[in-house]
């Protein structure tokens, strides 16, 4: 990838970004609690450690990592909510936490577990309020709103207060709310959390469409690998505050997900099942699950070798579950918080 060219025209530049939280700690027990009243001890926790990347206008970036990896911290710094402990970042030429007001007027943010709409207000009134808060021109607001309402199919919900909506309905309204001022960047922090399958699909379709037709840059964090698979052309994997990988989804898939599964139902119980150059991942009675790298051993060679040694009833080749592989990747890189 031509990194030099990318850095030049990057919309978002992140350089050596670190964020350390100070967390009050105390010794256990009553004595510790009493001591804590007089002298507070603090423990430094590095949420983000020297993270650098650059992003071009119109990219669709997936940010993944286990809980506590630093995904939300990254989003909060990029959106101007948090100030990093060190490092630099600029978005469209602005430093988010220093030029916060100008910066946040140009971005849209959705936190999957939060709401930016007013709990007791009908959705349409919340939208009007956002129009005034973002100082959106009335005519432009009307056309943006009309288009979003149609794309996200929320027309029947507009007169209902937020508190009476289901999670899926709410998320569609939240996304509309984040886009009413036509931001050039959309941050989605776990937008599909808790959504049913239909809502997830609709949401992915919408985000893809928005990115394609409007050129909106999208940064997405999620734990749902299907979100990443459906949306992200580029993936950053973060673990323990460090950037572990920055690659296209396709190359991540072939490198990390390069493994294939071969599931074999044997005709009889065998104790002497060999690995035939693959790895035995699991065994359940007469069913054995092999893992193999197609670059090293071709599927037909492996199948021929197994079939030559034993009586076989059925053979299936599968991709490993993406969650499983990602979990192994995290474990391998010590990414999971202790």
């Amino acid at each position, binding site marked *: 990838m031509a990194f030099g060219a990318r850095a030049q025209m990057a919309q978002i530049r992140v350089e050596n970004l670190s964020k350390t939280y100070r967390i009050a700690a105390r010794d256990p027990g009553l004595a510790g609690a009493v001591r804590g009243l007089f002298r507070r001890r603090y423990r430094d926790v590095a949420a983000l450690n020297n993270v650098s990347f650059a992003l071009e206008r119109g990219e669709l970036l997936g940010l993944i990592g286990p809980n506590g990896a630093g995904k939300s911290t990254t989003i909060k710094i990029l959106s101007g909510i948090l*100030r990093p402990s060190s490092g630099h970042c600029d978005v469209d030429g602005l430093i988010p936490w220093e030029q916060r*007001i100008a910066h946040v007027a140009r971005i849209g*943010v959705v936190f999957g577990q939060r709401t930016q709409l007013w709990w007791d207000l009908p959705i349409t009134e919340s939208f009007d*309020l956002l129009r005034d808060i973002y100082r959106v021109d009335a005519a432009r607001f009307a056309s943006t709103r009309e288009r979003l309402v149609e794309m996200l199919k929320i027309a029947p919900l507009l007169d209902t207060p937020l508190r009476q909506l289901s999670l899926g309905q709410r998320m569609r309204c939240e996304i509309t709310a984040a886009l009413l001022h036509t931001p050039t960047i959309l941050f989605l922090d776990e937008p599909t959390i808790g959504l049913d399958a239909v809502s997830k699909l609709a949401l992915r379709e919408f985000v893809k469409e928005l990115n394609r037709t409007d050129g909106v840059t999208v940064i997405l964090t999620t734990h749902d690998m299907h979100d990443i698979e459906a949306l992200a052309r580029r993936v950053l994997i973060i673990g323990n505050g460090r950037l572990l990988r920055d690659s296209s989804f396709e190359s991540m898939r072939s490198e990390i997900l390069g493994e294939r599964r071969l599931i074999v139902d044997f005709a009889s119980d065998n104790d002497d099942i060999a690995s035939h150059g693959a790895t035995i991942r699991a065994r359940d009675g007469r069913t054995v699950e092999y893992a193999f790298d197609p670059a090293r051993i071709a599927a037909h060679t492996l199948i021929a070798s197994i079939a030559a040694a034993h009586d076989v009833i059925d053979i299936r080749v599968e991709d490993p579950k993406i969650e499983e592989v990602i979990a192994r990747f995290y474990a391998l890189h010590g990414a999971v918080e202790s």
Partner: protein
Amino acid sequence: MTAAILPYLAILRARFILMLQYRAAAFAGFATQCWWGVIKIMVMAAFYAGAAHQPINLAQAITYTWLGQAFLALLPWQADAEISEAVESGNIAYERLRPVDTHLLWLVRAAAMRAANTSLRLVPMFIVAAVLLPLAGLAEWSWRLPPNLAAGALFAVSITLAALLSSGFTVLLNIAVTALKTRRAANIAPVLVTPLSGMIVPLVLMPAWSQPLLFWQPFAGLVDIPYRIYFANLTGVGALAGLAAQALWIVLFILIGRAWMNRVMARVDMQGG
């Protein structure tokens, strides 16, 4: 110009309308305030029966009490509930995603909350204490009108300043809640506000030596100063000094609030990895 203040006006209007919906709470509050008003007036009458000479007379003390009940909702004894909830749920992050000045936004929101709550209670209290009581032959226990037009006009200015002062202090409470991440951070407020505003005992009835201190501390501007202006106990230079004290503390609360907010927002971690 209009574009600059548009967001704040929008929030002010929305919040005001929203608060007006809480009629049931306002009605319950009104009933409680009538009851407390009666008790306070009885205590005041007992006190005056045994006292020789006081800086304000019984009729003024009674009017003071009714004013206190009518404008009770103006007092800043808790943080903005919306912001407390946002702090505890993590929604507070969205406050920083608005392209507006957060301190001014919170100030406007607090002002809308206090104004809406007060206007819901003010009118019925006036009807009961200033209109119905005299009609029932209890004129000596009633809420009297200001003695002259000038006192009434000065009171209008002073009570507006009291609302701003209250809002400025509410924002300080909001920031404390944000910094400590619990609404209990605002529990200090009633302890300071209730006695020091003159809500329990009119500050003028306190010992003479304490008068300058009580007059210039921030909370006198919430109750004692505007009410004494109302029944012309504070006039001329005294009234102007009262307005100056209110203005002084409004400015200080805002300056302190802005500096403190910058510090807190730079450090607060806003929950979650």
